[in-house]
């Protein structure tokens, strides 16, 4: 491209800022910041639906057979639909869009110093497909027979034949929605990787990229490499449901275990796909609020590579009791327990970062620290489940349920709140109310533990998952166990109540909060060097990067932070 052409293009680009009308700015945007908001808001609305479902089925478990206030009676089929869609929504329509698509879109261009994603129109298409997928999923709750109830793993033959699932169109729309959602993230993922590879600011080397960006990109790479088999599986499941093929039906020569392999080959990397962005965001937050350099930047990065690589060879630990060869199970026990080593190393790096720092307990920091604590419990209980001998007893019990909620709740909900409270000043140009933020934090974190810690004990007592009324099981219908269920449900209601404070704080701060300076947290990365909120096109001039993102409390400097784009002093 000649210099002249480049100048003309720039002029068009500059003029364009004024021309954006409401439709092009908010409904059909190509600006990565607006697309990010669309993802985050859609994800938050879906989180409300998922939380409402959790409320309905927890109430049924605590008070079986009674009318649930604001819901009605929960029947057995409806109970299955609620738990299935709670899981599906929370993973695919909350964790993925908010943490990866939402914050990925928002922070990647800002943190690597470029004006937008490299494929902005692909980005817009990605959100539009995502929105359609969310609508298809919501539609599936209202078709004849109700929403799909075969669990979020949707094992055939329960999911593949309407005579077993009793939700003819519900299950098909569920598969369709999930497949559409993957296509959407596929487009987004291509964008994220290409942008980070090709559009970094001058001077930003591989090892100057903030960990948050690195981890989102790694998560996307894992996703891209693992999603193909699930899309293939979803197509086969859809064909089984609608046009009478028998890929997963043993009576027709198919193999139901095949689905489990295709699903978990994606499903286990998926755990790390949602985990890595939160780990990255937490790494950025704890360095800022501990005013200390990240301990072992390279170690943290390489352990993430190791985790990602290992995550592809652990999937069969979900199938220890599905009838796989015990010799194969042994191999998967080894790989599963191995994967805890890089993650433990990463945790130690984070703790070492905190050690000796001058920690400020601002709201984002509280969320980040609580993530480390809660995720530790989730990780440690996972080691028990990874051993096939123990898993035979624990499989599909509430122990498993409590374990993965101790991983997914910190990842999704705590990670989301950490990211929102941290980047809120940048996104909306206003500060969030600290007091309300702290009340909301304690009002979420304490009830969260009250919900899920007791469930470990229910699981050890032998309580199986996916049962809508334990009164039918004399061993499990005792008063002590019922008391634990009521306690967990009551904690859930308390936690949901405290979310109202967050919603209030979020909207009031957005419009009436204190004006935010460019760099309220005194952080180093590039997004804090521009106005809050950033204008269309982000940077007036492309920033030049001189150092890594974690130079806090550098010796011999007056300021305890050192922005990445500040030129070194000439001596």
């Amino acid at each position: 491209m000649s210099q002249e052409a480049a100048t003309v293009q720039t002029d068009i680009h500059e003029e364009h800022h004024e021309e954006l009308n409401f439709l092009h700015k908010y409904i059909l945007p190509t600006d990565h910041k607006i697309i990010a908001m669309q993802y985050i808001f859609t994800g938050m609305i879906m989180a409300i639906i998922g939380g409402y479902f959790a409320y309905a089925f927890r109430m049924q478990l605590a008070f079986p057979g009674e009318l649930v206030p604001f819901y009605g009676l929960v029947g057995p089929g409806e109970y299955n639909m609620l738990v299935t869609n709670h899981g599906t929504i929370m993973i695919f329509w909350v964790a993925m869009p908010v943490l990866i698509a939402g914050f990925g879109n928002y922070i990647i261009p800002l943190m690597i110093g470029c004006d937008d994603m490299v494929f902005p129109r692909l980005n817009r298409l990605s959100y539009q497909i995502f929105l359609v997928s969310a609508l298809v999923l919501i539609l599936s709750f209202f078709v004849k027979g109700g929403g799909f109830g075969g669990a979020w793993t949707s094992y055939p033959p329960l999911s593949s034949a309407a005579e077993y699932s009793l939700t003819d169109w519900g299950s098909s729309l569920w598969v369709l929605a999930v497949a559409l959602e993957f296509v959407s993230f596929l487009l987004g993922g291509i964008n994220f990787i290409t942008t980070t590879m090709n559009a970094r600011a001058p001077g930003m080397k591989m090892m100057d990229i903030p960990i948050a960006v690195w981890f989102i990109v790694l998560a996307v790479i894992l996703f891209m490499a693992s999603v193909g088999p699930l899309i293939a599986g979803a197509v086969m499941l859809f064909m089984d449901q609608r046009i009478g093929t028998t890929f997963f039906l043993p009576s027709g020569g198919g193999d139901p275990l095949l689905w489990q392999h295709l699903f978990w080959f994606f499903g286990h990397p998926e755990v790390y796909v949602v985990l890595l962005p939160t780990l990255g965001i937490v790494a950025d937050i704890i360095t800022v609020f501990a005013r200390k350099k990240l301990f072992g930047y390279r170690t943290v990065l390489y352990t993430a590579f190791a985790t990602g690589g290992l995550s592809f060879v652990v999937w069969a630990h979900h199938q220890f009791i599905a009838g796989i060869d015990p010799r194969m199970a042994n191999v998967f026990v080894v790989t599963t327990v191995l994967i805890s080593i890089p993650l433990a190393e990463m945790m130690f790096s984070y703790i070492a970062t905190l050690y000796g720092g001058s920690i400020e307990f601002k709201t984002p920091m509280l969320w980040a620290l609580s993530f480390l604590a809660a995720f530790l419990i989730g990780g440690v209980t996972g080691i028990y489940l990874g051993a096939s001998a123990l898993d035979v007893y624990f499989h599909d019990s509430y122990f498993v349920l409590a374990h993965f909620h101790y991983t997914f709740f910190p990842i999704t909900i705590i990670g989301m709140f950490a990211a929102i409270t941290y980047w809120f000043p940048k996104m909306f140009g206003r500060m969030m109310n600290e007091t309300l933020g702290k009340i909301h934090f304690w009002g979420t974190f304490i009830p969260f533990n009250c919900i899920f810690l007791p469930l470990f004990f229910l699981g050890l007592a032998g309580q199986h998952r996916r049962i809508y009324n334990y009164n039918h099981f004399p061993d499990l219908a005792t008063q002590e166990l019922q008391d634990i269920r009521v306690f967990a449900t009551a904690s859930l209601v308390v936690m949901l109540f405290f979310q109202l404070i967050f919603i209030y704080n979020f909207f009031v701060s957005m419009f009436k909060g204190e004006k935010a300076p460019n760099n309220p947290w005194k952080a180093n990365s590039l997004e804090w060097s521009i106005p809050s909120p950033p204008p269309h096109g982000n940077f007036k001039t492309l920033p030049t990067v001189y150092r890594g993102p974690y130079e806090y409390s550098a010796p011999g400097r007056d300021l305890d932070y050192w922005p990445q784009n500040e030129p070194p002093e000439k001596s």
Partner: protein
Amino acid sequence: MKTTSSQSVLLATTEVSLPRQPQRTKSPVSNGIVGMLIFMVTEAMFFAALISAYMVIRAGLDEWPPWGQPRLPVETTAFNTLLLLASGLLMAYSRALLQKNKILEGRQWLGISILLGTFFLISQGNEWVQLINFGLTVSSSVYGGLFYLIIGAHGFHVIGALTVLIFAWNRLGASRNPITPEGLFPLQIFWYFVVCVWPVLYVLVYLT
């Protein structure tokens, strides 16, 4: 974005090089190519899953193809395979011409390559009609289901690739809103992928 882009239709980019600014180090591989290569990884995994599904289900059955199901036309499809491979070679030839800036000649060979791809598609469709008449349908057996799943998945890729290639062919060397050879290249990579996957599927489904 109203900025006219030199990149292809699908992979439009906003590469705005602002004057009097620190310049980004030019990356060795263009955005379009990186994006397409990442997409190819996902596609490869997709086909790998289909192939493994085929092998798992087949290993679980004693008789293959199942009793009463028609055999697949090996010879006609071998001819189709040659057509598709020739199309891939011509695509490479047109790429070589375009790189030497011989736009018109390159466009001509690109057109012939697209034509051969279309013949492949029509011939395969004709084969499907005959197989259905012989009683091989998606629900007649898991054998038929797998055949239509795998060959159909490839067929959809051929249709998609041909559609974007025809679109690009139309814009190559056009006076208004033309596409550059560099912008075309990611689409050609997609075609190479479609061509290279086919022999694997042919050997798996038809020959073994």
